[in-house]
């Protein structure tokens, strides 16, 4: 980037091609102008993508609406938030007491109190469901935008599990569905899972000594020379330039994007949630204690990595930790009070750090963060101090993306068990996400998108009140 600026006189217009090249080469450490690059490249390819990214923080296990964003302190003690409440920056609105940092930032994001996921089953809706053609929601986006961002070579759909930042963490929980599914959309559009292998990521890893690939590259280019008489314009030329880009990617390495070492250590420290819940403070009597540890050790860094990936042209990042929100107070899961300490406190810190960082970087129009789980929790606290599954109401928060922030959308009934205003469904949420990422009107006119994908992407109505 530097030499590039040196050689171009001030005030001259940077050619798009050069600009792209600069973007591609400097991939590891790019921060500025990346989204612009993405947009330029998308325009060049006539893709109906908007200059935005979505991070879906999936709170797997089913977070309680009471202890998060809808405490209901007026309700009887067996219903209201077990952790109490904390005042927020919006007068009259309170959150569960483990969310003090988010409470101070409440005017920066929007909470939905009438979100209904429809059932109390542990699955992986809304990220993967019938609505998404049994694919990760990001696969639908990828089907439209292409599996790889043409400008930065960054995969457009990525799923982050704790192992992406912490090799010692447990494996991704797949008992309730695979968040890396491509469902009916097709394997090429499956999310890339850093730290886990799989199609595109496998292909990005060099499987040969670099020297031998260089040798082969030389051989290929001389053998390919011979039959150049065939028309080299159009498809063949495209293939040629993409091949060169692939070599650059392989030899230059996209790996920097997946390595937090390139980030300012102070920023990493600001996000890091590990110090909040040291493993030795987690009670081993809960079978899930390792997962609580993984959650605390990884969540902040995962959100930081998600931000980096978005800056480098990834459109959809799924972030999840290891099924930690299922607070039944049974042999596996902690009580609400204890569990929110293990799980809620790092969530509060990580999401707050993320919001502050995004605000400081001026990216709040560009990145949308969505946080929810597959369901909510029952209004009545069970005898052991936990809450059981509940499909009729669930917490949902959204931040950024150029949507209207600082509001509470919808209301719940007095016992916090049902919506008391217009229901917001996972379909509505998906529609909001797709409208954020894509120019839906243009998508409708696109050729080559299968009907089922088209219907999934363009159907439904975005959540009212967000635009």
């Amino acid at each position, binding site marked *: 980037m530097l030499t590039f600026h040196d050689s171009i006189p001030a005030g001259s217009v940077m050619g798009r091609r050069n600009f792209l090249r600069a973007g591609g080469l400097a991939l590891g450490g790019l921060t500025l102008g990346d989204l612009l690059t993405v947009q330029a490249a998308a325009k060049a390819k006539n893709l109906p993508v908007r200059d935005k990214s979505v991070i879906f923080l999936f709170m797997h296990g089913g977070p309680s609406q009471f202890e998060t964003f809808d405490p209901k302190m007026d309700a009887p003690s067996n219903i209201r938030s077990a952790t109490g409440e904390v005042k927020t920056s919006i007068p009259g609105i309170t959150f569960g007491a483990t969310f003090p940092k988010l409470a101070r930032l409440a005017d920066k994001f929007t909470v939905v109190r009438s979100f209904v996921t429809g059932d109390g089953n542990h699955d992986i809706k809304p990220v993967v469901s019938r609505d998404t053609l049994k694919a990760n929601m990001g696969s639908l986006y990828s089907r439209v935008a*292409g*599996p*790889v961002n*043409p400008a930065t*070579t960054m995969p457009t759909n990525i799923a982050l599990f704790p192992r992406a930042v912490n090799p010692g963490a447990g494996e991704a929980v797949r008992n309730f569905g695979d968040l890396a599914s*491509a469902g*009916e959309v*097709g*394997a*090429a*559009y499956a999310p890339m899972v850093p730290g886990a292998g799989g*199609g*595109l990521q*496998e*292909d*990005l*890893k*060099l*499987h*040969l000594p670099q020297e*031998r*690939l260089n*040798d*082969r590259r030389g*051989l*290929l280019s*001389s*053998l*390919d020379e*011979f*039959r150049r008489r*065939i*028309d080299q314009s*159009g*498809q*063949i030329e*495209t*293939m*040629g330039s*993409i*091949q060169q*880009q*692939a*070599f650059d*990617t*392989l030899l230059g390495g996209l790996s920097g994007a997946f390595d937090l070492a390139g980030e300012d250590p102070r920023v990493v420290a600001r996000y890091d949630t590990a110090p909040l819940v040291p493993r030795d403070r987690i009670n081993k009597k809960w079978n899930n204690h390792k997962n609580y540890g993984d959650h605390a050790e990884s969540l902040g860094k995962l959100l930081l990595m998600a931000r980096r990936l978005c800056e480098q042209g990834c459109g959809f990042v799924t972030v999840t930790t290891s099924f930690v929100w299922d607070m039944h107070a049974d042999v596996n899961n902690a009580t609400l009070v204890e569990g929110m300490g293990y799980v809620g406190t790092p969530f509060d810190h990580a999401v707050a750090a993320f919001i502050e960082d995004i605000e400081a970087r001026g990216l709040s129009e560009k990145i949308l963060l969505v946080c929810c789980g597959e369901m909510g929790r029952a209004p009545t606290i069970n005898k052991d101090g936990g809450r059981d599954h509940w499909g009729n109401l669930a917490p949902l928060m959204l931040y950024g993306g150029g949507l209207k922030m600082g509001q509470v959308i919808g209301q719940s009934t007095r016992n916090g068990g049902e919506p008391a205003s217009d229901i917001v469904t996972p379909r509505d949420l998906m529609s909001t996400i797709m409208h954020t990422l894509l*120019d*839906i*009107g*243009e998508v*409708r*006119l696109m*050729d*080559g998108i*299968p*009907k*089922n*994908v088209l219907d999934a992407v363009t159907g439904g*109505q975005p959540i009212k009140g967000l*635009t």
Partner: protein
Amino acid sequence: MLSISKRTLFILTSLAPLATAAPTLQIEATGTPELTLRGKDAKQQIIVTAKLDDGALRDFTHKATYSASPAGIVTIDATGIVAPVADGAAVITAEADGVKATFPVKIEGAGTRQPINFANQIVPVFTKAGCNSGGCHGKAGGQNGFKLSLLGFEPGEDYEHIVKEARGRRVFPAAPDNSLLLLKGLNVMPHGGGRRMDAKSDDYALVARWIAQGMPFGQESDPKVERIEVIPKARTMALGGDQQIIVLARYTDGSVQDVTRSALYEANEKSMAEADETGRVKLFDQPGDVAIMVRYQGKVATFRATVPLGAQVASLPPVRNFIDEQVFTKLKAMGVPPSDPCDDATFIRRVSIDIAGRLPSLDETNRFLADKDAAKRDRLIDTLLASPEYADYFANKWSSLLRNKRTEARDASSTFAFYGWLRDSLRANRPYNEIVRDVLAATGTVDENPASGWYRQVKEPQQQLEDAAQLFLGVRMQCAQCHHHPFEKWSQNDYYSFSAFFSQVGRKGSAVKETETIFHRRGVASAVNKKTKQPVKPAALITGPMEIAPEDDPRLALADWMSNRANPFFARTLVNRYWKHFFNRGIVEPEDDMRETNPPSNPELLEALAAKFVESGYDLKGLVRDITRSQTYQLSAVPNNYNKSDRQNFSRYYAKRLTAEVLYDSLNELTRTPSNFSGMPAGTRAISLPDNSFNAGSYFLTVFGRPDSSSACECERTQEASLAQALHLLNAKDIQEKLASSSGAAAKLAADARPDEDKLRELYLIAYARQPEAAELALAKTHIDKPRNAADGKPMEAVAAKRQGYEDILWAILNTKEFLFNH
């Protein structure tokens, strides 16, 4: 362009006696010899056409200088727009290149303004500015609480929304400029859609005046647009040239209005031409035919430009059949000399891939290249058509289009049966119309009647009509479900009438397994038009409503209508689809979007192919034989000095990337490693996989775009190159494993005692069906002989080193464009 400017120079500077006739100029306005403008707001675009001494016509509208006399009657600007000043008569003079033309104009009622009609005048402003487009306020739910009907097809609803909704705050007659509608349009008030209007524009002034007048809707008796027309309709133009066009709206009362600046323009071939919002068409540097679609108020018209290259077509290769006659006639007219015929090596590889979906075997190639028979190409075509791979390859194509999709494991018996039926039908060369009839009018379960497999995935009458129309008739009806098709003449009534053919399709559960029985439910076929809520009878696009007795299956009537020899859609769609299969480009492109506004690049060719196909009794193999036997198909992909920019006249073979399946099979062939699809015998060719379910387990097939049988559109197969594909071929673990396999080609070649040169020749024959050139052979041999060190730095043992050399060669071959493409 060059010739014109030279000529211009010549006229201006010379008094030379050699000077031939200067161009003559002609002015046109509405197609009549005189222009009459009525009312203060009337305007008219005129065009100035020069007839050059060679007879060619060129647009001089933007080159001419204009004057009008007497003064004070009309104004005319530099772009040729005439506007009234006062009542009276005047003469307009255009001058260019020292020659002049004149045109009489009459002005009436210059002081009076016609009352504004909302539908005729205001709605087009929204359409032009994009307000009512599908991505904005025109989408089903509107945008930010403000909804307009898509492309203004429902002026009544738009009027309600603008004038009455939101307590009337969108318009403010007391101070029109302060109306929300205009403030948003100018982006003075924050507007998600940005600035859509200019405060100085006529459109703005018109809307403001309409608000000032108290938002009249207009009278029931006001004239409506009956049709629009374009002047000129067609032109032969020079590369890089431009042409102003005039768009006239003809109203029900017989009146005519210039709507050039209110219409919307779109080229069917965007790499060839573009039109700006003033109706000025600019060509780029690609020869061929291009149509500019013009839309106004739901009416469409086209301007067609023919852009010859203009080179000498001195000699043409021998004509082999009727296809060549049509193609070569066109090439001569366009001045595009075709490439030379391709050599035998190229031909055997090309035709084997295109007919049988595979590379020719080493043995086939050797025999073919050695064969001295002049008719050997024709014989090869017949051999391929008789091979089971022909049926595999085309069954694979049709299976995807007919949505033979497996979503659950238990669907397998159905998908296998339907695929098997398709394959057998193609193998036996059953007439196409019979195959389609069996699919469309199928009854029974998939077990009893595999042809009913289409109904398994395509469940609703609407899907059935949309798929049938797109697949068999090349007509896209989807849009007409909710609104008048914006590019087409099809209405919602056409849509629902067509769907009525499928209204009596009954389904019931079957005793055996989960399969359903499809049957004809006795009753009068009809459907309800969702817009008018009126029932409609079955009607197939251009036919009137059909009377079908309750006991007759309406689907049979539809199939009969399709197979009628005179059906203008059925045969054309199929021959165009197959043409594209072989030439990588339809005569109409895309191949399943045939409409007046997207004309064929060679109508006579399409006609001839369709006529022959009908004549032959819908003989699919016959069609393939005709196409592949033609000289046109057998032209080289190597361009000559002239035809490189040709993309639609078939002056050479257009190279295409191997499809996912063919590439995968070819790769296995080259590396001598078997495929491994779950549930299928090892070594099963990807081309003969019976359904889409194998995609899920094969990153290779999906990344190279094998379709999932989710739609009736060929476009579901993505042939576009992507970085993910390139990475996979260069670096995938699976492919490295194939190359390094101890039973694979590299290991075998390294152990083979023959000289390396022989083995390399063989590799070239397998991969490219040709011998390597001397330099290639030398290069490859050098690479194999190169000293190699093992990981520990010591020289490698000879066989291991050789094996590594062959792995590299194989890797390089499979990444060459010559291998990846059919050319």
